[in-house]
């Protein structure tokens, strides 16, 4: 068997983000932050006609997350027996929506951030890549376009659960249990650096390239199980004293239906994209008798137009919603949504060098980190600039 076509590629990017009123993505963006960069190098090779493999090493800094630790982004062997049936084994990008697998490659999109309603940066790890096996294939439909399918199963890692992205989620879930407990007054709960362990993940994805040139539609579904552990500090005010307790909490989360519907239409220099996701999950805590079931979701619509060889303009509207059920009534309404209106310009200075500028107007505080936002403001803005080079 001949080893052929060994290829080495990579990319590096550096961004800057500035916000008003709220800090974003675990960065102190109100002051402006450069802790926003990625770098990767990948090696791909073919062994004969049907077998290929590769690895990508990846490093990033995103506020408190990443801190330039090097991780195995993906690395797998791929045996394509026939066009309609192939097998993959290793650490593989999860096929979720149309853009999950390529979300860390800046060169492929004209915006700095993907719409957070479907591609939430804080929840990237569980849905980004899995360790396990997958089967995939391509089926021409004789005049009806073609289908690409994928089934997969395995486990997943959460690399930086202590960075701050998970504090909100953990507190949200704990609030769902504690509000019905017989405390003399509402307790003040502080989550201390949760640890998240992925147990299993499996799912499938289907893409239909329709007979209408440029139009593709698709859907993906995944199921997952994870454990969330943290020491939770509970402050219970009473008439005489305030009781402080440190309680170890172990939440079992079962994601039952995580579905993404996708559609994309390309006509010459115009690209229209729409995606919607729904997420149903159940949370159990062994000390409590009852479970909690949640349903969250979001959608976005995006327009991209390549004005010239070197300039592309994009705009999207993104709407994320959280579940209000089980939550304390005093929590402000705007904690349950994030509406993001974005306008972006991308400058292709050379085929390998890209600079992007974008502005966002935000309504809502859903997904904002509580550690860097003790007080949250409903209406706020964000500006980002990022430059990327790939080879």
């Amino acid at each position, binding site marked *: 068997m001949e080893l052929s076509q060994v290829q080495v590629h990579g*990319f590096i990017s550096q961004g800057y983000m500035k916000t008003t009123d709220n800090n974003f993505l675990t960065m102190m963006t109100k002051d402006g932050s450069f802790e926003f960069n990625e770098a990767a190098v990948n090696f791909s090779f073919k062994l004969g006609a049907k077998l290929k493999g590769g690895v990508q090493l990846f490093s990033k800094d995103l506020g408190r997350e990443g801190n330039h630790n090097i991780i195995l982004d993906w690395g*797998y062997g791929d045996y394509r027996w026939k066009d309609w049936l192939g097998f993959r084994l290793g650490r*593989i990008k999860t096929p979720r929506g149309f853009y999950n697998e390529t979300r860390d490659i800046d*060169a*492929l999109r004209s915006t700095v951030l993907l719409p957070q309603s479907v591609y939430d940066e804080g929840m990237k790890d569980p849905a980004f890549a899995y360790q396990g096996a997958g089967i995939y294939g391509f089926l021409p439909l004789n005049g009806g376009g073609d289908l690409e399918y994928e089934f997969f199963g395995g486990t997943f890692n959460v690399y930086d659960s202590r960075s701050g992205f998970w504090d909100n989620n953990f507190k949200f879930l704990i609030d769902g249990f504690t509000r019905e407990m017989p405390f003399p007054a509402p307790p003040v709960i502080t989550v201390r650096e949760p640890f998240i362990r992925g147990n299993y993940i499996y799912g499938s994805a289907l893409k239909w390239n329709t007979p209408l040139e440029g139009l593709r539609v698709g859907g993906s579904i995944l199921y997952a199980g994870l454990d969330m552990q943290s020491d939770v500090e509970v402050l219970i005010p009473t008439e005489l004293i305030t009781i402080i307790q440190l309680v170890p909490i172990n939440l079992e989360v079962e994601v039952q239906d995580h579905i993404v519907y996708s559609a994309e239409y390309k006509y010459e220099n115009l690209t229209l994209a729409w995606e919607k996701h729904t997420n149903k999950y159940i949370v159990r805590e062994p000390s409590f008798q009852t479970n909690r079931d949640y349903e969250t979701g979001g959608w976005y619509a995006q327009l991209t137009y*390549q004005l010239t060889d070197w300039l592309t303009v994009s705009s999207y509207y993104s709407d994320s919603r959280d579940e209000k059920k089980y939550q304390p009534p005093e929590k402000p309404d705007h904690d349950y949504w994030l509406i993001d209106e974005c306008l972006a310009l991308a400058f292709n200075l050379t085929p390998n060098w890209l600079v992007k500028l974008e502005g966002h107007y935000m309504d809502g505080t859903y997904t904002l980190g509580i550690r860097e936002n003790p007080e949250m403001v409903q209406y706020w803005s964000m500006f980002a600039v990022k430059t990327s080079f790939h080879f």
Partner: protein
Amino acid sequence: MEERSMIWQRYVIVLCLCLLAVLPAMGQDEFVVIVNTSVSNSTMNQNTIQTIFLGKKTEWDDGSPIVPVTLEDSDAQRAFMRKIIKKTPRSFSTYWISRLYTGKAIPPRSFQTDKDLLDFVESNDGSIGFVTGPASLEGRDHIKKINVVY
């Protein structure tokens, strides 16, 4: 009335001149799709060639591997991308970056000149590519042209 007729005559003459200017260009092939003679096909439809160059179809009907190759920036490349792949050269490049950077596929090898591409196709079984049209294949015994059905 006579004046109006004159205007029409002028209009028809100008239109004919425009058509005469355009017709030679329409008849001229901007690119020619070629394969190594190990490939049994002489006619292929546009959609099949598109799926080959997007890495979705990787085997000929007899199960042998397909080896697609492309030309780098050229008029033939732009015409091939527009008519067959239905993408701009940039979006074709972006498509392959996404496949490569996720480990899913390795892009087709590309060549700077017609001669380099012809040399490769001539000496590699299963290969398919395109060159600037009308191409002369004289002396290229292991290459044949493909009739593309749109």
